[in-house]
């Protein structure tokens, strides 16, 4: 678990989780929203469950810092022991590569706009599986993490901080509603428990 990681830079974030249904591997997403005492908040780190995304949302003030950092949630298959990442690909379609995202100015003009279901990247593991990581929140794509391209191990070693997937900035009007439909860490744990019980029970 990213307990240790929850400190350091991630301390300023609140975690929210997204679970997705469907697919045999139901993974969780984790999203963190900003907490913190400073006027500047980062955003939410969204961890999704289902495929496990954890958006981190940073900020103490709802009306300021709204930046969200998308990361893998703890229960995501890619973070389980024995998984080796073979490739990370930000080219999600013939016309769209998240690497080509260019933003300019304070208002981040030119950013690719993401909906909750927009794919961020596709990650392949040595056992032949491929996982699509989704945005989980609506907003402008600010940047994707190029460090994990050169060092995929980072994603597994520090999924909640240096191994983040992307940074997203929701629209100002939507900054409060962005966490609707997301789970708190406690709710996330409950979902995980239920899954364990149901899979062991049946």
């Amino acid at each position, binding site marked *: 678990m990213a307990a240790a990681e929850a400190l*350091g830079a991630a301390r300023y974030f609140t975690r929210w989780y997204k679970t997705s249904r469907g697919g045999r591997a139901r993974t969780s997403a984790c999203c963190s929203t*900003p907490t913190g005492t400073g006027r*500047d908040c980062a955003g939410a780190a969204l961890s999704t469950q289902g495929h496990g995304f954890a958006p981190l949302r*940073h900020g103490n003030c709802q009306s*300021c*810092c*709204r930046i969200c950092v998308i990361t893998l949630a703890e229960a995501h298959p890619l973070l389980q022991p024995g998984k080796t990442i073979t490739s990370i690909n930000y080219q999600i379609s013939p016309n769209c590569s998240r690497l080509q995202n260019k933003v300019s*100015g304070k208002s981040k003009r030119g950013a690719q706009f993401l909906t909750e279901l927009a794919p961020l990247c596709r990650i392949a593991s040595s056992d032949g599986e491929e996982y699509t990581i989704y945005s989980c929140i609506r907003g402008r794509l600010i940047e994707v993490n190029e460090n994990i391209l050169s060092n995929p191990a980072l994603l597994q070693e520090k999924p909640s901080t240096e191994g983040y997937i992307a*940074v997203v900035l929701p629209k100002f009007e939507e900054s409060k509603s962005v966490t609707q439909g997301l789970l708190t860490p406690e709710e996330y744990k409950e979902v995980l428990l239920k899954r364990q019980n149901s899979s062991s029970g049946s």
Partner: protein
Amino acid sequence: MSSLTEKDRPIVQLLLSAGTCPRCIFRFCRVGSQTLYRHPYKDLMKDLKQFLEGNQEEEDRACFDVADPPCKRFRHGHTEEGADDLNQNGVLSQIPLANDGNADVENSDVENSAVEVCNVCLGILQEFCEIDFVKKMCEKVNSSDFQFTSFVFSVSLPPQLSVREHAAWLLVKQEMGKLDLSLAKDDIVQLKEAYKWIIHPQLSEELGVPTDGKSLFEVSVVFAHPETDEECRFLATVCPDCFKPAKNKQSVFTRMAVIKALEKIKEEDFLKHFPCPPSSPKNLCVALEIQCNNGAVFVAGRYNKYSRNLPQTPWIIDGERKLESSVEELISEHLMAEFKADSFNFSSSGREDVDVRTLGNGRPFAIELVNPHRIHFTAEEMKGFQQTINNSSDKIQVRDLQLVTREAIGRMKEGEEEKTKTYSALIWTDKTIQKEHIAFLDDIKELKLDQKTPLRVLHRRPLALRCRIIHTMKSQYIDEHHFRLHLKTQAGTYIKEFVHGDFGRTKPNIGSLLNRTTDILELDVESVDIDWPPALEN
């Protein structure tokens, strides 16, 4: 010293019968003697008429001699005689004729035009030169309660005056052409200039201070003449490109635009649309506004911040104040009251977060006090203000409080980008550390960082990559999970992000250097390395 001569006669005759006032006539005759304009209106009118009737040069000279004969000097500025008084409409009432009152039929035109509002200056060089108006201005100045040692007087004239001036010029030019003489527009004495010749001494005397072009205290008057506001309109049809509709301005017919159009317009076109000579208006101008304001003064100093809960500027979200007070309010409040200013602008050489203290010599700051009513304070008094501010709060302290010039502010801003800062950071590590694990930090010099815009400010700053240098570091071991780090860095370095790495977006960082997860628990600014403002003996 020019005064009216024989060749001016036809011009004087022409203008006077057209309804132009004596002072404007002087202007068109290029009379440059300021004193002459200051003679009482009545006298000028009388003398002009005498001039027209007389034929000898001696008589002319006697009338318009620059050295005032005692009787004229005595009457300068007084309006005891009711003859000059305006009736309710602001129209000059009948002025008695210079000669013994025999209504001369041939001069009847001249006589009638004397009572009218001037067709060129619309009364500016008439009624608004009188002591009553000067007194009205002084009343406004005195009631505004400003402190000043000199003044500058500025006046704003309605644009149609330029049009009328232009028409009068064409008229005079034509007349002079008959005598094979020319008159360039630039040769005419400017209306504003003549007005100031007359107003300055009177205003200066009433206020008790001299005029000074560089003075910070400004008395300004705005004149308007609604009756003739439409007179500029024809210019837009003839020279449309001079009048671009400006979004914020109420009228497209600004003074500058009108002047530009008058330069371009051809004489024939002008004369087609505008009467020459200009018509006599029914009413005088009105003085719309009499305003005073003082130029801004600048107070500089250095501040220390001892609170970890104090923002630089007021923190208000949705109309609700989130944190009590602010650095700028604590410093500026008292100064605003002492200087009796309308508002202030606070700026400093960089700034620190809410939760960061500023120690050492403090951070340079400057406050612009806008429209201060009080400006004269001794160094002792400034020290007194410093003490008052320091006594009022333990969250901040100020030093070196002093008055500075506007230019000096530039030096402060230089500091923001160029000068180094030193910090002290309390750092936490997840895995344990021993002294030897952090000792190597002391040996690292000129460490280059690549810092992406920190996540905590990314919502309001552009995404960028900054290269910054950590010049030196000195570590102080505390325990297995804590140590203190003193650093000297380039201006603009994000210290917090250097410590915790900001998700790997600041590289290298203390975490990567120590191969641990690190966080910053406390940050203090130890010094801001800039030599401004000059240190004072405290």
